[in-house]
């Protein structure tokens, strides 16, 4: 016990004796740990906020979209959710609370929108009033799409802030007319600004009634509809899912054994998929930046080897007056671990700061969250680096023959 305390004291002393050298050595670990923490904290913050967004969809919601594996697409097959599918689901499936179809203009590409001499590109979507709850888009000026708009195929649009700016519309554009796909539409609402998510503009949309969109697309293209629906309660989720699957399989004339050409996902499943992606991302990026920790560890090993050589005579003296192998081993090991743990502490602090800084500088980016496990891993890792890279120099010191070490000049 006393020897251990003494080893720690002596390790601290010798680290202090070579202040600048120790600092430089530690820097490798500091940089390694800081980058791991930064990356993990930023990604975890992102994942947290994405999960929150999906939670707002509620556990009673389902989304239906066409889906074909890449191989099938290569064979020339096309999958879509048609208007017939939409109607069948709407009228035949029980326990649906609300249903929101979304129709993208021409395969989800942006379309040109005009106002006067200004032209802008926007995501043009046809949907219904319930889309408001799904997408959390609220009107800043004017109103959102109504049931009536859809019934009477009104040529009205709700636009996003980005589109307003691109078209040089005045701050309150309600009542202005813009051109979409060659037709005139009245602007009835301007949505609140949402900002960017991962560099994707979220305010670059033009929303029009679903039925109007259908009319606009006409018969040239058969639409592929994305459907978002909520059910009356979580207990009916499964039966609704089964009913929809049955209808779609029949409508799409899928034979027994053929795979679905659509996907029915609950909000939970979506969250899970995204979490998986984020976890993989964390692992890959974390792995890449961990390499710098490895480099830091090698730096520690290098300086410890120098230290052992420098102090060969001291080691000889200690052995002559009674130090055993483990005394010397522990002393050098503690020195290496102390160096790397210092690096770990400073690295966690810097990493946390950098993560917070990064997320505060990216607009609309969620605040960085440093999970406890990341701190634990960083400390554990730096201690391990200390042990792994300290053991070789320490063993070299411990194995010195007292007589050789004493004679060392």
């Amino acid at each position: 016990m006393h020897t251990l305390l003494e080893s720690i004291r002596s390790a601290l002393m010798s680290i202090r004796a070579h202040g600048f050298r120790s600092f430089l050595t530690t820097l490798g670990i500091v940089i390694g740990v800081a980058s791991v923490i930064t990356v993990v904290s930023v990604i975890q913050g992102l994942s947290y906020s994405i999960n929150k967004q999906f939670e707002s969809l509620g556990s009673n919601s389902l989304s239906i979209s066409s889906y074909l594996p890449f191989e099938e697409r290569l064979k020339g097959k096309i999958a879509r959710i048609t208007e017939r599918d939409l109607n069948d689901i709407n009228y035949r499936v029980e326990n649906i609370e609300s249903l929101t179809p979304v129709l993208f203009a021409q395969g989800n590409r942006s379309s040109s929108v005009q106002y006067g001499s200004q032209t802008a590109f926007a995501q043009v979507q046809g949907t219904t009033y319930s889309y408001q709850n799904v997408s959390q888009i609220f009107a800043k000026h004017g109103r959102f799409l109504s049931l009536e708009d859809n019934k009477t195929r009104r040529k009205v649009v709700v636009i996003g802030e980005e589109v307003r700016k691109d078209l040089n519309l005045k701050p309150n554009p309600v009542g202005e007319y813009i051109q979409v796909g060659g037709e005139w539409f009245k602007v009835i609402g301007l949505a609140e600004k949402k900002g960017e998510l991962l560099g994707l503009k979220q305010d670059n949309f033009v929303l029009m009634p679903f039925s109007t969109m259908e009319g606009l697309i006409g018969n040239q293209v058969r639409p592929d509809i994305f459907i978002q629906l909520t059910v009356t309660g979580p207990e009916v989720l499964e039966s609704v899912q089964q009913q929809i699957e049955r209808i779609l399989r029949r409508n799409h004339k899928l034979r027994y054994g053929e795979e679905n050409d659509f996907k029915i996902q609950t909000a939970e499943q979506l969250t899970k998929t995204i979490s998986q992606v984020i976890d993989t991302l964390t692992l890959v990026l974390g792995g890449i930046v961990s390499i710098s920790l490895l480099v830091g560890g090698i730096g520690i090993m290098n300086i410890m080897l120098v230290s052992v050589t420098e102090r060969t005579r001291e080691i000889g003296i200690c052995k002559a007056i009674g130090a055993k192998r483990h005394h010397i081993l522990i002393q050098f090991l503690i020195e290496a671990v102390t160096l790397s743990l210092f690096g770990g502490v400073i690295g966690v602090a810097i990493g946390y700061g950098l993560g917070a800084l990064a997320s505060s500088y990216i607009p609309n980016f969620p605040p960085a969250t440093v999970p406890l496990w990341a701190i634990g891993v960083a400390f554990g890792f730096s201690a391990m680096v200390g042990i792994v890279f300290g053991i070789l120099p320490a063993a070299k010191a411990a194995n010195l023959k007292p007589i050789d070490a004493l004679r060392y000049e």
Partner: protein
Amino acid sequence: MALIELTDISKHYQMGDQLVKALDKVSLSIERNEYIAFVGASGSGKSTMMNILGCLDTPTSGTFRLNEKNVQDMNESQLADIRNQEIGFIFQSFNLLPRASALANVMHPLIYRGISLKQRKVLATEALERVNLAERMDHLPNQLSGGQRQRVAIARALVTTPSILLADEPTGNLDSQTTVDIMKLFDMLHQEGHTIVMVTHEDEIANHCHRIVRLQDGGIIEDKLNAHAA
């Protein structure tokens, strides 16, 4: 029973294809409270003798009994214990830890005995008082003169109350006045009952001792009592 009993001790090295016999079948015994000097030219084997007596090196063959313990069969860890408990080293170049104060240097061997910090301080202060260095115990070695450094080294050797004090050319790096002081200290320690073994090539130093063993080519050529001991 003698304190030290060497029987047929040999130490051979292989240097290239030449076998060097640093010590060849040396037998010797040293009693408690002896004041003995090993003298000889360089290469005579006196350093090897020192290393073997100090348990820093193991003999190639022969038996070495120290304080009724068979040292030649011991492993490294047991030898470390012997060095810690039975032997007090005093080196020509002092061999103090450069970054530790005089007090910390003297306390150091006690660490390996697991003695508490408080107790270590008490014992080390006592040892430094015995060598008249109590007022300089917070100084680092490089703030001390050669003679003072050697006193610290002697205090470090004394603090463990070893059975023998082993001094390797203890005055080799000191000026003549300091040499006299240090030798007086050794004389005093001998009178207090310590067993002192010294290695030197200076007859003047050897003359302080009561027994002089002369080595040459790895063997003892003379072993005499010194009637003129100062």
